[in-house]
């Protein structure tokens, strides 16, 4: 009885052990029904393996042979093709385990066949769960937890490594980037979300003088009300128009009429025509006249000038005919921002000499001088001339002082006579020396006891009255302008591109400042050159300084800028 096969089978729901004895030397194992050990599984070959009791000696071991040609039989977990086996060995074929044992000497080789318990479950069809999303391990809850932890962990990590910028509600302006991760430099924790950083934080570093004309009805706004940090402003100084329009959109003053337009929202939309500031004699403040109020727009500079005449071709110059241009007289300042004020010495003298008498040669009347100073100059010039031309006659003559009441000497009479003639020449309408530019008032009567001069001479008139000239140095004092960025335009189209009509202007009274429309050809919102309020206007009156405390030393700022 060489082999004994022990199997556990379930019959009518009861588990039983069935023992079969097999005679012969060869035990055939496989799926086929002609096998001694029938292993009914499709994973098992029809004839899978044999166990042969080859030897006749008591010590000879049974021999296992795999018939599949692919070593699909495992002995003690190792695939084999041929191997000796014995009691205690475990053979595995498909889902079956074959345990070998011997009861005692002369007893048959017992083969206990066991089947994997979960085989039945393994072979169950489960397509519905296989294709169903809800059976996956990555449920919505698990995914939610993972994503939430990533968000939380990422935030903690960012905070931990000092990337505090990720928590800021908006980018820091370019100038404050150096301190972007240093929140406590400006902020105090747990303040109300609608409150801004207090002014003392800002003025610690920045001098912020108050607004012009402290006439507003409300207290001055806080720094952060206009310079909104973390709110998308790259340059805090570039205050948005809305901040200005908050007051200037509906400007109210404590008393009287507002000096400025009372409803302005933006340059493009509703900025009024520019107003020039015309100085008025006897008034503390210059008069503001808008360029479109033609009847009031009169330049009362008390000076005569004809632009058209000056720009005419072949103008008689000191060295023959020449062509003047705007820049012959209007010169920019060192920064190129504004035009320097016109002066007689620099701009007029070259052509308009104040000569008065060929006798005294190249001598000209100094400018600017008041009439009494001119008279004193003339008397001194002629007295000097007399002395120089009558040197021999006067030499040896004792110096004298004319007694009061004594008649004037002939020398004094000559000087007085010459001065009268020179004044007549200078103040004449024909010669147009002084009268070319100035408007002189001539009082009637003779200068009997003139307080000016060393003497009074017959024919000497009362001194003319010269109205004080009032050429505005800044026509638009409430805005800032820079010619330099406009140089390309000036080169291409000339000054008249903006100062329209200058070449045709014949009247001194003409105001030749550019109208708002000429600026608006280039400067407008959405697509044009910059047109914010702050492009031309400043809020802080820089003439009123405010001291800052500077808690940052310059060295510290430099260090931060270098990233140390």
């Amino acid at each position, binding site marked *: 009885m060489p082999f004994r096969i022990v199997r556990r089978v379930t019959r009518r729901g009861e588990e039983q052990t069935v023992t079969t004895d097999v005679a012969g030397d060869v035990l055939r194992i496989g799926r086929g029904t002609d096998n001694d050990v029938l292993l009914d599984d499709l994973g098992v070959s029809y004839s899978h393996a044999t166990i042969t009791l080859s030897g006749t000696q008591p010590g000879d071991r049974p021999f296992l042979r795999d018939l599949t040609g692919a070593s699909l039989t495992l002995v003690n977990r190792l695939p084999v093709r041929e191997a000796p086996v014995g009691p205690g060995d475990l053979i595995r074929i498909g889902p079956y385990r074959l345990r070998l044992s011997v009861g005692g000497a002369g007893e048959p080789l017992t083969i206990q066949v066991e089947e994997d318990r979960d085989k039945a479950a393994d072979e169950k069809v489960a*397509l519905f769960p296989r294709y*169903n999303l809800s*059976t996956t391990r990555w449920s919505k809850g698990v995914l939610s937890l993972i994503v939430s932890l990533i968000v939380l962990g990422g935030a903690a990590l960012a905070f931990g490594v000092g990337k505090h910028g990720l928590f800021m509600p*908006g980018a820091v302006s370019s100038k404050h980037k150096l301190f972007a991760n240093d929140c406590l430099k400006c902020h105090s924790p747990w303040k109300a979300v609608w409150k801004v950083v207090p002014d003392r934080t800002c003025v610690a570093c920045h001098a912020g003088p108050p607004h012009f004309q402290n006439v507003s009805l409300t207290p001055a706004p806080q720094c952060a009300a206009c310079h909104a940090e973390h709110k998308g402003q790259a340059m805090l100084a570039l205050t948005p128009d809305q901040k200005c329009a908050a007051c200037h959109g509906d400007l109210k003053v404590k008393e009287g009429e507002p000096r400025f337009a009372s409803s302005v929202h933006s340059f493009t939309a509703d900025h009024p025509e520019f107003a020039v500031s015309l100085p008025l004699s006897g008034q503390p403040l210059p008069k503001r006249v808008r360029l479109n109020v033609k009847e009031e727009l009169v330049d009362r500079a008390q000076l005569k000038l004809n632009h058209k005449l000056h720009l005419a071709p072949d103008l008689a110059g000191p060295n023959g005919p020449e062509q003047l241009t705007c820049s012959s007289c209007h010169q920019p300042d060192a920064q190129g921002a504004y035009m320097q004020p016109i002066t007689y010495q620099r701009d007029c003298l070259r052509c308009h000499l104040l000569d008065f008498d060929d006798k005294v040669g190249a001598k000209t009347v100094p400018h600017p001088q008041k009439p009494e100073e001119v008279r004193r100059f003339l008397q001194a010039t002629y007295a000097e001339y007399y002395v120089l031309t009558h040197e021999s006659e006067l030499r040896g003559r004792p110096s004298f002082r004319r007694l009061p009441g004594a008649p004037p000497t002939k020398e004094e009479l000559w000087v007085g006579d010459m001065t009268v003639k020179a004044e007549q020449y200078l103040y004449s309408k024909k010669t147009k020396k002084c009268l070319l530019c100035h408007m002189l008032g001539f009082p009637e009567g003779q200068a009997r006891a003139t307080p000016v001069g060393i003497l009074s001479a017959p024919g000497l008139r009362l001194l003319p009255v010269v109205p004080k000239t009032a050429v505005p140095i800044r026509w638009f004092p409430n805005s800032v302008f820079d010619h330099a960025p406009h140089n390309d335009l000036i080169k291409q189209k000339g000054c008249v591109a903006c100062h329209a009509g200058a070449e045709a202007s014949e009247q001194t009274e003409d105001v030749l400042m550019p109208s708002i429309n000429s600026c608006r050809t280039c400067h407008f919102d959405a697509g044009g050159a910059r047109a914010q309020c702050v492009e031309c206007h400043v809020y802080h009156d820089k003439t009123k300084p405010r001291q800052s405390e500077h808690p940052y030393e310059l060295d510290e700022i430099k260090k931060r800028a270098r990233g140390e």
Partner: protein
Amino acid sequence: MNESFLSYGGKRWLWFGGLSAGLLCVSYLLYRRQMLPHGGTPMGLTYGVLGTVVILILMVLGIRKRRYGSGLGTIQGWTSAHVYLGLLTMLLIPMHAGFKFRLDIHTLAFVLMAIVVISGVVGIVLYRTVPPRLTEYEKSIQADKVDKELGRLLNEMRALAKDKSDQFARVCQAEISRLTARHHQGWRLLWTSQWADPLAAKGRELADAVTRIPPAEHKDFQTLSRLIVQTVQLEQTVVTQMRLRNALQAWLYIHVPASIALMVAIGLHLVAVFYY
């Protein structure tokens, strides 16, 4: 379902959403004229508070739809409100931020919200298009009934393979392994082609296999082939139906986790802005 959740209650939520959107746009244009819009202005804060309240209401749908006994409105009403209020957040929150976004946790919260809303819109489209097609397929047999039918076929195949050659058994075994495999394929369905023809492929495979089968077993192999073709057909029924069923579910695997993460991000946003 005669009335869609989109037009529930005489389109009352559509009207509410549309009118609110109109009012919001007008208010924003007025607000923008007066100041630089951002989250800290009174209007910005108002938009933010409104947005948070709306998002919380939206989250309540997740709770309400699991409470079958609740009398607080109908599920359809809640879903309708969920859709239109959800779309409204895409207006409220950018207005709160003054339409300014950068690389920070605040924008992260917005991005998560955008993901939630976009996945929600995908969900709406799916809910409008998929169920009619699914009903059409379910007329023959429902996917969850197929397993039982397949089990019966497998038993027949096993019985047929009994005492057959190894070649025969191998074909049979391969089919059984294929149908009993445990690996999850729900997601794969969504991006594999629905136009592939596994039946034709299987026919070619069987024609190839028959050359290796001993002639004596050819008759039984024909029976086996018929059984196999039947399993493939049944599996295709499951696959087609599950592809649609899963499509109805899949967007929620983005929608729900993103909305939970959104709550976390909103929490971070609030701490960050209220701390300073």
